[in-house]
């Protein structure tokens, strides 16, 4: 049972870190195509806000509908694989959009959503989904919603600082993104193989 909780916490930390790391790196990905102005940061932050919002409601909905962890894990595997392809996607998206939309505000907003909507929305599903799953086990779970969000946001803090302070100076952006995608893929796969649904007692 402990392994289930550790894995769930791992998912919270990992995907909390991953979304913030992607947000930090997205300015590097966007600026060659849209510049380095305040507009770009507006697009980056607002896009991620959209993705989080949709992810939260989708996560809660899917959890309620399926009452199982494995649908989330399949989606996370898909999202992680998408992230691994971002270094190939973003130049194409950047060129395509910046050639067709003159205003960098709307251009960068469109490009951000083409590149990040699916993976970040899915990753944002993790917190509400896990809160939902745990609430199905009120007797066995010691974790409250606040604790789940604390762990996930702690992951976000680590992801932000590790990326901005260290990783970006040590590795190419494409390497960081692909490495992160691979790490997320491996962990999600591991969580799937663990068979969490069987281990948790469902009422």
């Amino acid at each position, binding site marked *: 049972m402990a392994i289930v909780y550790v894995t769930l916490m791992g998912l919270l930390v990992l995907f909390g870190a991953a979304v913030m790391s992607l947000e930090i790196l997205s300015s590097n990905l966007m600026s060659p195509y849209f510049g380095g102005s305040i507009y770009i940061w507006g697009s980056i932050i607002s896009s991620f806000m959209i993705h989080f919002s949709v992810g939260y409601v989708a996560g809660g909905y899917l959890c309620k509908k399926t009452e199982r962890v494995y649908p989330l894990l399949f989606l996370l595997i898909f999202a992680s694989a998408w992230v691994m392809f971002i270094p190939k996607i973003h130049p194409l998206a950047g060129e395509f959009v910046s050639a067709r939309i003159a205003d960098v505000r709307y251009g960068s907003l469109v490009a951000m959503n083409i590149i990040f909507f699916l993976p970040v929305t899915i990753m944002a599903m993790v917190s509400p989904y896990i809160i939902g799953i745990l609430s199905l086990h009120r007797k066995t779970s010691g974790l409250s919603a606040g604790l789940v969000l604390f762990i996930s946001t702690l992951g976000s803090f680590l992801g932000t600082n590790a990326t901005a302070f260290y990783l*970006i100076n040590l590795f190419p952006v494409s390497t960081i993104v692909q490495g992160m995608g691979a790490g997320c893929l491996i962990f999600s796969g591991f969580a799937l193989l663990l068979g969490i649904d069987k281990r948790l007692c469902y009422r």
Partner: protein
Amino acid sequence: MNDRRSAARSALRASQVLVLLAILFSFLFPVPLGAETQVIYEGDSIYNHIQIRQDAQERCMLFGRYSDKRQTCLDMAKPDLSVLEYTGMMFVGFLFHPETKDVALIGLGGGYVPTVFNLHLPDVRLDTVEIDPLVYTLAQKYFSLRTTAKHTVTINDGRQYLKKTDRRYDQIWVDAFNTDYIPIHMTTREFLQLAKTKLTRYGIVLQNVHNSNKLFDAQVTTYRTVFSHVYIFNGQYSGNSIIVGADNPLFVPPKFQLSAKRRPRIGLIDLAAEAGKYVPEPNIMPVAVLTDDFNPANLLLHQDH
């Protein structure tokens, strides 16, 4: 005993009040910086904290709160005098290409370069690109910046401007960095390759950099991967250098006495003297090539050359 204690307490209380008053007063009356230096403007934009200081004839626009490294200064009585060394040095571009017709400048500052063009190069097109609208406003208000049909200012990101423009330039000058804000997407190989596509046949890219940190070495290294000829000019009185990248320069430094004959001065700028700052064998450390994918510019900025 009690009298001494209460006297001490009163003295302490009085001194606390005095300190508090001094602090409050300092907000009302900004502390003067030196005998004559006055801060005539201080404000923030999204991109910069900007201060404008006046010291006798000299008016400077400073960027950043904690360091005076990045600034642009004009002598208000002689606005085409190059108060700071690097602003005059940039005009060596005219020795590489004396018949320049079109120049793009990225980074406005106080507008020294456009001022020189206004006064002495009225027929040479200068398109200045500045990202911060406040810088433009302040340059107009405090440094008498004027635009004409041939001397324009566009508010835009420099790389974006170059990407979208249909114009071709004989010279592209990059002076976009300050202590707070290094736009790293303008330090990379891909940026220089883009700039190269906007040059005319004998065009050059020219950049002002500080030479005291490893970012300088990285930028020279990056220039060398894009241009077949890269030239360095070192400031004699400042920590600035000018990097020039060119594939087909019309004149090269050993031949500068020829181009200097055609155009020995631009206003008060002595081009022959600036040519003397050329460094044939610069001491450049092998550092990473800066690319859009991998750019530790902020780290290199803090490592000494």
